[in-house]
Structures are given as C-alpha cells and as structure tokens.
C-alpha cells in the first residue's frame, strides 16, 4: 500500500488543490497563462483540468489592459497559476 501524496493532516483545513478550487469560485482572480499574459476576472467555475470560466475579464500584457471579455473560457493546459485577488 503506497502512501497517498494527498495531505491528510498537518496542513490547515482547505489546503489541497481540490479545496482551493471549491473555495475560490465566485472570487476575483488573476489567471496567468504560460506566455506571461494575465486574465483578471470573476471566477465563474473551473474543472479538474484547470479549464476556467471568467466573467468581466481583463487581459493584461506588459502592464497594460489589452482586451476585455464579458465571458471567457481559458483552456486548462495553458494555465500557469490561479491566484486570488481577494481573501478566500
């Protein structure tokens, strides 16, 4: 029986990626994709592939807003990280 890498304690509650995903829906987030472009928006939902749906999205590149999207879908393989812009 091999040990599961999923932390079973030690860390505070809500520590695992799964818990993070549950708690972050509905919050404002910054999603950075591989090439350094950021998407700031309200996180509508996401799935296990890190596919993301955002509302009221701003696309940021080199410190400037380069586009706005009412709704937008980001394919998960491009996602570098999802970071909360507010307390979760």
């Amino acid at each position, binding site marked *: 029986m091999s040990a599961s890498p999923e932390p079973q304690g030690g860390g505070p509650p809500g520590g695992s990626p799964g818990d993070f995903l549950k708690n972050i829906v509905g919050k404002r987030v910054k999603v950075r*994709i591989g090439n350094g472009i950021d*998407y700031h928006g309200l996180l*509508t*939902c*996401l*799935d296990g592939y890190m*596919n*993301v*749906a955002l509302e009221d*999205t701003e696309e940021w590149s080199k410190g400037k807003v380069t586009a706005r*999207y*009412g*709704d*937008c*879908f*980001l*394919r998960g*393989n*491009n996602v570098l990280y999802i970071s909360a812009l507010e307390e979760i």
Partner: protein
Amino acid sequence: MVWSLIVSRNFASVLLQQDNRLDQPGSGSLTYLYFEMEEAANASISEPLDLVKLALGERVFIKLRGDRTVSGVLHAYDAHMNLVLSQVEEAVHIVDVTEDGQAMPLRVDRRQMEMLFVRGDGVILISPQQQ
C-alpha cells in the same frame, strides 16, 4: 467543402478536401451539438465547458497559440476544445525583424474561410463575441 486544419505547434495550415457532411453521424470524434442550443439557453454554467456550450450558434472570438486569433460562428466543440467554426476570419499577428535585428511594427495577416476545424490543443481562450 474545403476545410482548413490548424496545426498549432508548427503553425502550419494544411488545407484538406473533406466531403463529409457535418451532421453525418460517426464522422470522427467530435460530438456535434447543433440541436442542444435551446437546451443550453436555459442551462446555467456549472463547469467551464458550459460557457462554450452556451456559445453554440453564436459568433466567438478564439485565441490560439502562435499569435493567431480566429473569429467565427461556433458549430461544434468537444472536451479537447476541438472546434468547428463557419464564416471564419483568421488573423495572424507577426512581428517582422529587419536584418540588423530591429523589430518592425506589428503586422496582421487576415484571411477568410467558410468552414474551419480547429485542433483543441492550440486553443488558449474562447469568448462569445460582444458586438
């Protein structure tokens, strides 16, 4: 019917002759979702792919790897984000470099296609087009 296949990694576009009708059952792995539009209209978004489902039949803007953007009417998608679009305009954003290494102003190459299949692994972003 002429199809274009975007191969995302090497940015090559391969033109294919394709006689299959879109609505023919069993023509490849794409799930065709033409008739789910009414269903989608009153469905809420519970997973990210629902957003794509809600955009079926509408004009969408798509960002692809390799500094490409595409806009067209979304006809079908699957879990890989393979897409079928019609009335497509593709834009390729190019920065030319002179012989001494100076970057020229951004150039945009545009072209139109009647019907297009986009391979899912090139997709970065999909957004219903506001206009």
